[in-house]
């Protein structure tokens, strides 16, 4: 068994959910690494879109921190504008999108705008970026987040990126005609969303159900067949570390 970080198992768990041939709206940080990893392993035909306007079907030739970095443009298939990649998303041509955030709730709503502290004070967070667009318009949505009780809350303080909403049919009522969270990948395990509410579907190796319940702000429900996330292989770790050599994202 190789030693790996929580970030690395989140990346491998996310990468395994990219199907070969998927058109993926790639975020930054862990999702970017997941896309790079999937491309190098089981999904060589996956296509990546970046909101600044990059379309590429090869991993960047060198490690990158932002989608605007030079190695993410060199060797791309197409460099255009935000309007064009977002039009592909709006037009229904994106299979899978990734988002992260500060808070997620039991319906998969994600908050990257504003959190209320226990003393009532407000913490202002950066905002949507393209997160809301991806959550509204991609066919499948994967949410990636560190598993902490203050992050996995019963109800988010602000909906930046809409999930399934509090009752079946909520998304449709909002005017959202497709998509919704498929999975929430955390540092402890994986949730799926049967009937639009989070249900623990898998645990990372060495993590107990009690540990997850403790770190989850909503009343935990579990799938009848809890899976154990496969450990990252040596090859997977080697690829992740090639794209994140200084452990900038996966430490």
């Amino acid at each position, binding site marked *: 068994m190789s030693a790996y970080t929580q970030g690395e198992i989140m990346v491998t768990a996310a990468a395994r959910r990219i199907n070969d041939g998927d058109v993926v709206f790639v975020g*930054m940080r862990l999702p970017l690494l997941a896309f790079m990893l999937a491309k190098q392993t089981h999904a060589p035909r996956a296509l990546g879109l*970046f*909101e*600044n*306007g*990059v379309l590429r079907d090869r991993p960047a*030739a*060198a490690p*990158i*921190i*932002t*989608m*605007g*970095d*030079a*190695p993410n*443009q*060199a*060797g*791309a298939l197409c*460099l*255009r*504008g*935000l*309007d064009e990649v*977002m039009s592909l*998303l*709006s037009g229904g041509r994106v299979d899978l999108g990734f988002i992260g955030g500060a808070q997620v709730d039991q319906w998969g709503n994600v908050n990257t*705008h504003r959190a209320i502290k226990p003393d009532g*004070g*407000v*913490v*202002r*967070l*950066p*905002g*949507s*970026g*393209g*997160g*809301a*667009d991806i*959550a*509204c*318009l991609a066919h499948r949505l994967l949410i990636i987040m560190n598993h902490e009780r203050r992050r996995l809350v019963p109800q988010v303080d*602000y*909906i*930046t*990126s*809409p999930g399934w*909403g509090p009752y079946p049919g*909520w*998304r449709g*009522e*909002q*005017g*959202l*005609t497709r998509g919704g969270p498929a999975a929430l990948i955390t540092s402890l395990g994986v949730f799926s969303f049967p009937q639009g509410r989070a249900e623990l579907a898998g645990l990372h190796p060495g993590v107990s159900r009690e540990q997850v319940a403790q770190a989850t702000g909503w009343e935990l429900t579990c799938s009848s067949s809890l899976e154990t996330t496969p450990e990252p292989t040596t090859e997977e770790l080697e690829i992740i570390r090639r794209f994140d050599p200084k452990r900038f994202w996966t430490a």
Partner: protein
Amino acid sequence: MGKARDKVKSLSRAVSELVRPGDSVALSAALEGFIPYASAHEIIRQGIGPLTLVAPISNISIDQMIGAGLVERVIAAWVGNVSTGIGYNFRRAVEHGTPRPLEVLDHSNFSITLALEAGARGLPMAVGRSPLGSTMATENPQFKSFTCPHSGQRLLAIQAVNPDVALIHVQRADKEGNCQVWGAAGFTKQAAMASRRVLVTCEEIVDSEVIRRDPDRTLVPGLLVDAVCEVPWGAHPAPVQGYYDLDNQYYLDYAAATRDPDQAQAWQEEWVDGLSGREAYVAKLGSARLQGLMVSHSRPSAPLEYGW
């Protein structure tokens, strides 16, 4: 439009002529690349405010102008530090009203693009589907949901945005402001087309014949442009394809230096107010640091045949 023909100016003169107190200013329109830091710093040096800033993911350009006390309103999709997350000046302005209170009209990247695109077309609104279902769509008065008269679908009417000035940074432009860009450009085109005035900084001013050799590369035509300023390294620490890559360490250092408000003021003194202009900034970075950011893996494009 009656714009001047020879638009080449010093950056300090262009900023003082084109940016006025009370203006709305679009910037950082290409997201993480091509950020017009040199122009933003010149605005800070000249103390021009209060301003409304319009941007997608802006990285730290907006945070710096907020820290300088020049921003009263932000219309944007994301304000922070892409390398580390939080923009501390932004947080202090929203949470504590320091150095001045800040109104935020929250958008998504797509909705702010559509708002500018509508502005560019002279229309009062754009139509979008995202961010329906979000708190943005109910809190920001620039969004109104409506029922499509054709399909019956619930959609968003996104109010058009027409900034007073767009600040854009490009690789090269000619004296008349025909701007050529290679690399993903975010909504640079929409920002330039929607704005009443456009201030261009470029790595190089080139002969008009260079532009004409590859007109497909022209992202913003000179007819929209008011001033052209040759400012090498004008987007540092953001990347500019073919010239320099991201200087991530600068973003990490900025995050560490701005966590505390007094230190944030010291950062501004060190990197903006205490420097006479961009040449002094570049000199301060030092040649070894610049060398490390320059192209080390050359990848020129193939020439194209435009003849007949």
